[in-house]
């Protein structure tokens, strides 16, 4: 495999992000004892499984050229509905989870239909969805509902041992499965490629005969579904439902996607990048926790700086690739044009002209 072939303006942000993650992790390993272990790494996944799932849905939306601000609220609503059904109504977990997933997907579907059918701005529609879902939480209850149901806590606290002392949770496994499926969806299905095409140029996608409407609606449905799943994962993690869960999660998800190399203008990005983005957010948190002297708000500062840096970097790469493509505009010519062939070409042209004038 020729590696250098795969490094271009698209993949470079992803590569840089991955290197940054390795660097941050390496830094932690050197600076703090006990940081360098498989468990610390896996904990990143376990602690951030829900952001990861939500960010994956968000990545599809952003690649399609849209935005989904409702994800955090849908997550909160999902935790609320789940907790209420499990605790107050004693439903089985196997009935509750499909139901809330369906609810999230339905919520996304509705927003998608509004966006497509009435040509509304995704920003506004999903902003509406955000308020609506958050508000609905408080209809169920103003207080937090903790989940004590036996079977639920069992699943939530299940630890799959990997070797002697490392373990992984169900949530992390679900997040990885979702990631694998999302990569397949994005890279190897017609739906995925249509999402990229719409983000690249919606009018063109229309003129190429692609199913724009269906795809756009599906993208928001997918994001709603991912949010609901993220909500379920939070209930595993926190064992409670609360209207104030996942406040501002939509922004974390967007940040993860952008740090992972997805362009907010749409059309460019990798789902896997969002995982790395999430891991970077997580590793910064871990670093600050290990340090112990900094307040956790430093995470925000670090993320803010990173975001700016990444946007800047993407812009620079774009510039770079433009001047790069400029060189290509001489595609017809060999790099060092030998005088000979060139003269022949001109002569061919000349004869064409003479024949035309003669005719």
């Amino acid at each position, binding site marked *: 495999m020729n590696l250098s*072939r795969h490094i*271009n303006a*698209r993949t470079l942000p992803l590569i840089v992000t991955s290197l940054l993650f390795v660097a941050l992790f390496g830094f932690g390993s050197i600076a703090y004892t006990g940081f360098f272990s498989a468990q610390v790494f896996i904990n990143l996944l376990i602690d951030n499984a829900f952001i990861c799932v939500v960010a994956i849905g968000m990545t599809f939306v952003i690649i399609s050229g849209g935005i989904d601000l409702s994800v955090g609220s849908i997550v909160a609503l999902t935790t609320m509905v789940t907790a209420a059904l499990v605790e107050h109504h004693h439903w089985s977990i196997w009935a509750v989870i499909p139901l809330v997933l369906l609810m999230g997907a339905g919520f996304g579907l509705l927003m998608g239909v509004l966006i497509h059918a009435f040509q509304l701005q995704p920003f506004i529609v999903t902003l509406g969805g955000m308020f609506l879902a958050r508000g609905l939480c408080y209809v169920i209850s103003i207080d937090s509902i903790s989940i004590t149901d036996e079977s639920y806590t069992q699943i939530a606290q299940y630890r799959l041992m990997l070797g002697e002392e490392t373990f992984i949770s169900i949530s992390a496994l679900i997040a990885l499965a979702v990631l694998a499926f999302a990569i*397949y969806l994005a*890279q*190897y*299905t*017609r739906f995925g*490629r*249509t999402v*990229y*095409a719409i*983000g*690249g*140029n919606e*009018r*063109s*996608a*229309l*003129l*190429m*005969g*692609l*199913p724009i409407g269906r795809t756009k609606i599906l993208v928001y449905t997918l994001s709603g579904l991912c949010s609901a799943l993220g909500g379920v994962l939070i209930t595993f993690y926190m064992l409670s439902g609360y209207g104030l869960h996942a406040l501002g999660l939509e922004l974390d998800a967007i940040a993860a996607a952008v740090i992972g190399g997805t362009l907010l203008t749409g*059309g*460019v990005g990798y789902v896997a990048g969002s995982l790395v983005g999430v891991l970077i957010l997580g590793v910064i948190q871990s670093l600050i926790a290990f340090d112990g002297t900094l307040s956790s708000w430093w995470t925000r500062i670090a993320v803010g700086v990173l975001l700016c840096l990444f946007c800047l970097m993407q812009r620079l790469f774009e510039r770079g*690739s433009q001047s*790069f*493509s*400029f*060189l*290509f*505009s*001489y*595609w*017809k*010519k060999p790099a060092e*044009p030998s005088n000979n062939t*060139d*003269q022949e*070409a*001109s*002569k061919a*042209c*000349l004869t*064409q*002209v*003479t024949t035309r*004038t003669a005719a």
Partner: protein
Amino acid sequence: MTVEPILVMQGIRKSFPGVAALKNVQLRLFPGEVHALMGQNGAGKSTLIKVLTGVETPDGGEIRLKGELIQPTCVGEAQAIGISTVYQEINLCPNLSVAENIFIGRFPIRGPAIDWKTIERESQTALAALNIHIDVTLPLASFPVAIQQMVAIARALSTAAQVLILDEPTSSLDEDEVERLFQALRQLKQKGMAILFVTHFLDQTYAISDRITVLRNGEFVGEYAASALSRLDLINTMVGREIDEASYAAETAAQTGSVAADPYVSACGLGSTGTMRPIDLDIYQGQVLGLGGLLGSGRTETARMLFGIDHTDSGTIRVGGEAVKLNSPRKAVQHGIAFCPEDRKTEGIIAELSIRENIILALQARRGIFRYLPKRLQRTIADEYIQQLGIRTPDAEKPIGQLSGGNQQKALLARWLATDPKMLILDEPTRGIDIAAKLEIMELVKAQCRKGLAILFISSEMSEVLRVSDRIAVLRDRQKIGEIAGKDADEQSVFRMIAGAES
């Protein structure tokens, strides 16, 4: 002909708010023919194609494919019944790879996944048929417009369609590429495909087409065999009045205004390592300097250097006798230089803004936001240019995106003329403009020039360069190889110079 037509459109009507774009238009396509659809800018050619392919819904009329009534409501549907189209506007996604652009919408699936290997292989073959050899896994945006246009064509050619529609596919191509496209079309024709072809190049019309349908102002004028319709007749039927290319040429050549003694812009040894070798150019007020040369000879690069878009690392520029550094377009604009870029689709128009706003844009930018042009004045200026350039629109407030392609080009030209520049760089100003308008625009260029404007004129059509230029700087291999006075030059002498026979 004894064969049945494969496609018949009859009584097609389509109105947009304020314009009747199509009034009772008909069209017949036979298998195994290339059919040229001709007409001036705004005649309704693209609209007819959009109605046929389901982008627009007709207000009336019927479309029959092989005798069966069809009514496509989206492009996908039209593709499914065997109508494959290259639209006039860009219809590819710059962020996707070349291969993907060719195959999206009909990806081969292997098992549960898209079969990328096949896609890459087959798109390579599809492009090779047009003699293009590029890395198909690179994003489309990394290639120049000409290649992008070829990719769009390859996409359309590679579907096994019965009807192929090409709306001005050749507007960014050079002669070589056009010839390759024509070879491909002839092969398809042999296989019995019906091809509808739109162009403003009459040479191309006669080179490839068997029959011609002419539209004028949204009305069907007639259907002719190409061999039975002379060039002059074709122009006259399109325009609806007598126009003589030759007399225009004579007229324009006869008038030359007074030329300033000193050059307005004088470049000395201007170059940029890797793209342009050092070049000397003097551009006088009251004169048109043409840049002659084949594609890739550095015409556009020269213009971009002069306008401060591309970085230069050697040489000096003097404007009005004063040495200046033009390292950004803003600087160039401040020195009274205007640049009408080649690629209208990506660098030019802002589709959502009105025609007036598009025209006024550069002028307002030059004045700065604090010296806002009163709306009444804006309207007067816009109306003046709409009238002068014959931009076909009911009024200046229409979004420019709704104009026909050629009329957008005219509005772009108006934008730069409105800034009242001292020097105007025109890079392919007549792309996609119909023959009558082309002559008018060249006339206009001449007129502006007589008023004391310095003009740098770039066109891939040598005859056009010859017609308007007072002097022609000939480029080859990104280097200036000589200069000829316009009145002594003809196509042969220029090409001989390029070929190096005369040096």
